[in-house]
């Protein structure tokens, strides 16, 4: 039992790519646009939870080792350079005021930044390049290929550079030995090998794709994705929630201003409801995963 808990499979990833993409499009877009503190909080909490659910220990390390310090630094940076706002707390030594509003805005902007980064780390895990190509390969073949290559660019180069530096280490030309001049020379050699490989690889990929007739009319592609009933249900659910949130956003329900004074909409029942809807949209994959997990456990217990 305990083993299956540790290495569970993300059920949301097994849904149809269209469902996955729609979900991330909504969530990423809303996270970037809504500056309301409640929305930001919901988005950050959901992103953190989902990323930990997806990647486990690695995500905890990344979230608290990198995102949390970055959040704090960004939050501090804003009041150091921005002095707008009605509520003056103290004066800096150079004469500019430190205002409450700039501190609050700094925290909000930092929250947004880390939430979006966290969402993208989830996106990369769920929306693999084959899913992306499957969705957009027909509509925009060239662009989708480029996009999927670009999105894979950094992890792929990282892997390749590791390979090269291991190979160089075997013949004693790694960054770990020699004087600093020698180290720099070795580093440049590794980089030059890397660039050569990248250029060659790009041409090879392009020719290979071309020889297999990528993008030609009438060419079919094998895919294992099926749009069945649960996908339809999930798509409907995400679509309705997303459109509701979008409408709320257009009607300025999530309006919040930081300068010159902090001001938002009054918290009536309707506004509380709209936050609840936003929350419901953000936790869709977590709900699906938890539900699937419980079902899996239940069947195991019964058997």
């Amino acid at each position: 039992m305990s083993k299956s808990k540790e290495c569970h499979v993300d059920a949301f990833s097994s849904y149809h790519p269209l469902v996955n993409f729609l979900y991330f499009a909504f969530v990423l877009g809303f996270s970037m646009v809504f500056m309301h503190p409640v929305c930001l909080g919901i988005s950050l909490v959901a992103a953190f939870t989902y990323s930990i659910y997806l990647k486990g220990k690695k995500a905890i390390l990344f979230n608290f080792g990198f995102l949390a310090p970055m959040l704090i630094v960004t939050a501090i940076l804003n009041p150091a350079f921005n002095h707008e706002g009605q509520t003056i707390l103290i004066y800096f030594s150079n004469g500019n005021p430190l205002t409450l509003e700039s501190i609050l805005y700094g925290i909000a902007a930092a929250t947004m930044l880390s939430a979006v980064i966290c969402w993208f780390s989830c996106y990369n895990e769920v929306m693999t390049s084959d899913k992306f190509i499957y969705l957009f390969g027909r509509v925009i073949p060239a662009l989708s290929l480029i996009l999927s290559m670009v999105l894979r660019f950094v992890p792929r180069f990282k892997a390749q550079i590791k390979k090269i530096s291991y190979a160089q280490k075997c013949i004693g030309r790694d960054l770990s030995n020699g004087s600093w001049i020698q180290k720099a020379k070795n580093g440049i050699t590794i980089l030059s090998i890397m660039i050569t490989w990248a250029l060659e690889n790009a041409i090879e990929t392009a020719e290979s794709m071309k020889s297999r007739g990528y993008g030609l009319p009438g060419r079919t592609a094998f895919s294992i994705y099926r749009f069945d009933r649960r996908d339809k249900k999930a798509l409907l659910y995400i679509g309705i929630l997303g459109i509701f949130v979008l409408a709320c956003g257009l009607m300025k329900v999530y309006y919040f201003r930081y300068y010159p004074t902090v001001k938002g909409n009054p918290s009536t029942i309707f506004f509380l409801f709209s936050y609840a809807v936003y929350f419901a949209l953000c936790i869709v994959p977590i709900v699906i995963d938890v539900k699937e997990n419980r079902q899996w456990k239940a069947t195991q217990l019964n058997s």
Partner: protein
Amino acid sequence: MKRMNYKWLGIGIICILLVVTFFWGGDYAKGGKADSEPAYSVEETENGENITDLEKSEDENSSVEDIEKTSQSSDSKKDEKVNNQSEAQSETEKSGLKKAESEESETKQGKSESDQGDKHLSLQGIDEESKGEKDKYLTDPIPEGKPHPIEPQEAIITKNAKTCTISIVCDTILDNMDDLDPEKVELVPKDGVILPPTKVTFYEGESVFNLLRRETKKNKIHMEFENTPIYNSAYIEGIHNLYEFDCGELSGWMYKVNDWFPNYGCSRYQIKDKDVIVWVYTCDLGRDVGDGFYEQK
């Protein structure tokens, strides 16, 4: 062996760089001195023409302090060449500014500038060449009879308290409410007056910026500024949370002293007794508040 070679190469390059900069810098200073000589005569002919009553009275007030200062400075630095140079230079600068002062204050400035002699030697060459055009802080020629900028780092703030009037108004926004950022509408007072004309004390040598900073702090009015080294002055970005560009793309804060809009920054304008300082918000690059700077061009 290879490593040694690199080391020696590096040391050699650094040495060559040092030698080159030493000689180049030395030449530069000499050139500045040579330029300063003809300016001497100009100073003599124009001396005493532009004295105003105000300046005279200021000098009388501060004369006691000045005499003390001059005796100190002349004792300590008489023999040094640097002192001679900087004195000559201070005089040339004054002649460039066409500002005449009594003997006491002249020596006083000489002292203050000997403290930063080197800085000036390098800048002086530029100063002399660009006479009639822009000065080293990109300021156009100052109109006849108007006070010349005094750099904040050279200003000496004494303990002589004087009074002047300061006010902050933004009534131009009332005529351009449509352009105003909707979030800022509530900030604009009904009559457009943020700080009504108030008599305040200042200390001789203070700039308009010093005064604004103190008065906004005292009256709990928000104010944000930014130092712009290229103009050697502070730039006022916003007062009372009304910022530049908040009311159209040509809007921002300007200041006028005795109904003249100085063509240089507020840190360089030294206040005189009974000056009337007004900070105004313009929505049209100064044209709507009576500044004709862009009309002349």
